[in-house]
């Protein structure tokens, strides 16, 4: 009986109920702002694979490696990647010795999550030299 007679408390409960209904209505009626979702950042290994396979479609990468033109190799990879993606490319010979004498990259890693892809390519020259290109990618979180 004491609760039924406490009209002030009931009004507060009704107020709270209507306030929550109002807030929920607003959240339901106002549409979320759609934003394009770029999944390339969440699928970096696939991006790395596509980049190396596409760039080496006519043996271009192996030519750059054979001529040890690391600057051109870096710019070539950079041109195929989005600006927001960090990369680090290391070229190994068949004995897993790194060939590039300085880092082929575009700065420091932008994320702790780094994806890596290894690509084996063969030189089109007469000695058919085999190289392993390791491309590491990271995207802004």
């Amino acid at each position, binding site marked *: 009986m004491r609760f039924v007679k406490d009209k002030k408390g009931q009004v507060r409960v009704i107020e709270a109920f209507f306030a929550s209904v109002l807030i929920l209505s607003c959240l339901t009626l106002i549409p979320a702002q759609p934003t*394009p979702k770029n999944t*390339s950042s969440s699928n970096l290994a696939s991006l790395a694979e596509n980049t190396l396979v*596409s*760039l080496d479609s*006519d043996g*271009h990468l192996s030519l750059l490696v054979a001529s040890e033109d690391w600057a*051109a190799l870096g*710019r070539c990879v950079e041109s*195929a*990647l989005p600006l927001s993606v960090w990369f680090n490319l290391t070229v190994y010979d068949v004995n897993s010795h790194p060939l590039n004498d300085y880092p082929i990259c575009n700065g420091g890693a932008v994320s702790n999550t780094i994806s890596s892809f290894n690509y084996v390519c063969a030189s089109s020259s007469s000695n058919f030299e085999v190289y392993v290109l390791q491309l590491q990618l990271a995207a802004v979180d």
Partner: protein
Amino acid sequence: MDPDKISRLNPQNTISLTHIDLATSARLTDIALGISVSQIMNIGIEQLSNHTVGGNTAFDFQVSTFIDAKPTSANLHCYIIAENYLNTVNATTNQSGVGTLALQVPSGNVDDALLIVFARAPFDERITSFTVYKFANSMQQTTPSNTSLSLSPLDSTLFYNASDGVSVEKVYALTYSYLQTPTPGSSQCTVPASVDHSPSVLVACASDGSGYFEEWTAYPQVPLTAGSGFANSERNVFTYTVTVDGVLYKLQISLGAINR
């Protein structure tokens, strides 16, 4: 990728795939699909000045080249085409992606002149792009705007709609390194095979009762956007680097749920 399949995705092609054809071919019934193909390197042209020199008008342009908004150096090969006039100019852009271009056009031909700029990355010739500058309205065009000839390349043939007193007098097939002038027929013209790692720009020079005009298109017809537009809706974007006729392009495939 096949240049003809790419060209048929472009809505400007006369036998382009419709949105429904695209969804049916992709076998996607409950997913919205969007495809866009663009050049790896972008080119910007800005006219700095012009002045008259005898019977010619001299123009100075600033050309900028960039890949994904990052300035990059490039070698430029430019063609100037007007009525009974053809000239070429070579230039470069520096490490900041900026270069200047000085050229002259006969003053009487300025209104119908086109400047076609090809840019090639020095580190990879497959990264070759083009853009077109129309002197008549001092505007750069990445996609052709004029469609009275309905230029439509397919199967190494340029089809056009030359009717109502319009006759195509000359066709230029331009690439970064080569210029060819195939003989135009009444409604089509064979596009010569190119050994160049470059997109082709096809310029048709025609005349109607009132005068001379030029229209252009690219082969393959890139850049293009096809399929769903995704306005105000969420989408997942997958970006790939692809090769079309020895030239690298950026392919973007967008997928999204259909609102019911």
